[in-house]
Structures are given as C-alpha cells and as structure tokens.
C-alpha cells in the first residue's frame, strides 16, 4: 500500500510537545489568572488535540474528505455549545426588560 509513512522522529517530537503542554497546563492552573485560567486550560487542550489529530491520526496526510469529516465534527459540536450557551448565558437579561 502506498501510504505516507512518517519517520519515527515526528512521533517522538509530537510526544515531547504534548508532554510539555501537560506540564504547562498543570503549572498555569496553580496561578490565579481569573478568566484566563479557563481560557489557557481549554486553549492548551485544543492545541494538544489538534496535534494528536494531525500527526498521530494522520489527518494531515489524509484525503481532504477525511479532513472535512473531522472539521464537521468540530463544527457540529460548536453549534451545540454556541446555541445552548446563547440561551443560558442570556437568561438573566430578562430582569432588565
């Protein structure tokens, strides 16, 4: 099969970055940064997930259709979060009306 075979070095590099990110996310959690704590935690998690998807799961080297399906899952999850939160986060507004 004529698959794109990555050199092992790529996997070790990604593993190293993932470990570094894990260390960072734990360290950051012990500082009080207000809202930035959540943003940093979720941001680092998204970065880690993206690296796993692109390199460990080979999406970077897969047909575009595969990448579209992956993006579709993120998009649909985004709809779930955005529409639901636009309801819950704005419920207090009725007290002004």
């Amino acid at each position, binding site marked *: *099969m*004529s*698959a794109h*075979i*990555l050199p*092992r070095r790529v*996997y*070790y590099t990604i*593993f190293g970055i*993932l*470990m570094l990110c*894990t260390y960072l*996310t*734990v360290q950051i*959690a*012990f*500082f*009080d940064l207000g809202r930035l*704590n*959540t943003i940093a*935690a*979720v941001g*680092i*998690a998204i970065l*880690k*997930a993206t690296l*796993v*998807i692109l*390199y*460990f*799961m*080979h999406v970077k080297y*897969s*047909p575009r*259709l*595969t990448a579209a*399906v*992956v993006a*579709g*899952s*993120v998009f*649909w*999850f985004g709809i*779930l*979060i955005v529409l*639901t*939160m636009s309801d*819950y*986060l704005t419920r207090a507004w009725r007290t002004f009306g």
Partner: protein
Amino acid sequence: MSPDAAHQHSDVPGLAHHFNSLEAQSEATTLGMWVFLVTEVLFFGGLFMVYTVYRSWYPDAFAAASHELDVTLGTINTVVLITSSLTMALAVHAAQLGQRRTLMIFLVATMLLGGVFLGIKSVEYYHKFAEHHVPGPGFQFEKEYVRHAQIFFSLYFMMTGLHALHMVIGFGIMAVMLWWAWNGTITKDYYSPIEISGLYWHFVDIVWIFLFPLLYLIGRHGH
C-alpha cells in the same frame, strides 16, 4: 475484467470483493472510522455541554469540588495515556513497515499502559467512595456547596466512567489486533485494522486531554 484478473483480485489477502484495490479499501475504512468518531464526539459532547452549563451556574461549588480530586494521580494518568498514544502511533508505524515483532511489542505496551491508567483510575474511585464524595444519600461536603458539588461529582463519575468504558473496549480491540498480528492476518499491505484501531485509541486519548483540565485543574488556586 478477464477471468485471470478476477482470480488475481481474490488472491490479495484482506481485500474485499467490492473494492478495486487495497488503497481504495483503506481510504474507505479510514473514512468510515472517522464517521463513527464524529458520532462519538457528539456522544461525549452532550456531557461536555452539561458540564459547561452547570459550571457557568455554580463556578464556586465546581472549584471547591474539583479541589477534592487528586491532581497528582490525574497528571500521572495524563502522562500514561499520552505515552500509550505514542506507543499506538509507533505500532501503526511498525505495521506500515511490516515489522511484525515490533508491532506486537508496541501493541502489548499500549495495552499495558491502558491497564495502568485503569488501575490508577480505580484507586481514585476507591478514594472517592471512602471520602463520601459519591453523589447520593451518603454524600458529604462543605454545607454551602453540598447540593451543587454533587452535580460536579455526578459529571465526574459519568464522564470519567464513560471514558473508562471506552478504555476497556479499546483494550479488547488491542487484544484482537495482537491476535491478528500474531497469526499473520496483518501484513505490510493489509494493516488497515491497526490504523483504524489506532484512530479509536487516539480519540479516547483526546477525550481525556479535555477531561483532565476541566475536572482536575479548576480551582487549584485560591482554595
């Protein structure tokens, strides 16, 4: 197709009759696995959604309850699981090169790391039962947070429990892959089963990458 070509086609190990080539079959199976993983994203997504709503409503109770989780064990488990993703990626790599022995070693390593993860998880669950942090009539917590902390721990057990169930299933899948690698089903040309099992394993790793900071790391400061 001449009878000769048809005969050749049926001789390719692992190739189903409705595909022209192993490349076409491999692309189709990978895409099919990804479609399944999309349903998994939305399956877990519902729980992440509930978590987001309740955390936005009761941030203080969630921070106090999160503080009760063991961040050391959580961090060790994160390292264990990411390492198992590395061994899984290296298993797929070995399969691509047709290195049967290396493939089997990395599959066993992946299973061992998965087992370590589940072992640490059960130790954590044991602590939660001993500390009366399991939602229900026996639940004990600081009085002002007792109701809403139960919501956090309900989500904790549901999300990590569902994740652990996926780990157990993944362990079973790896056992089958080990069997197929051993009996020669997996070859340099036909390694799709290893590739898509790897996709499943990495997906379960990604779920944990989000669960870890959202459950263990909120409210580490100021409590």
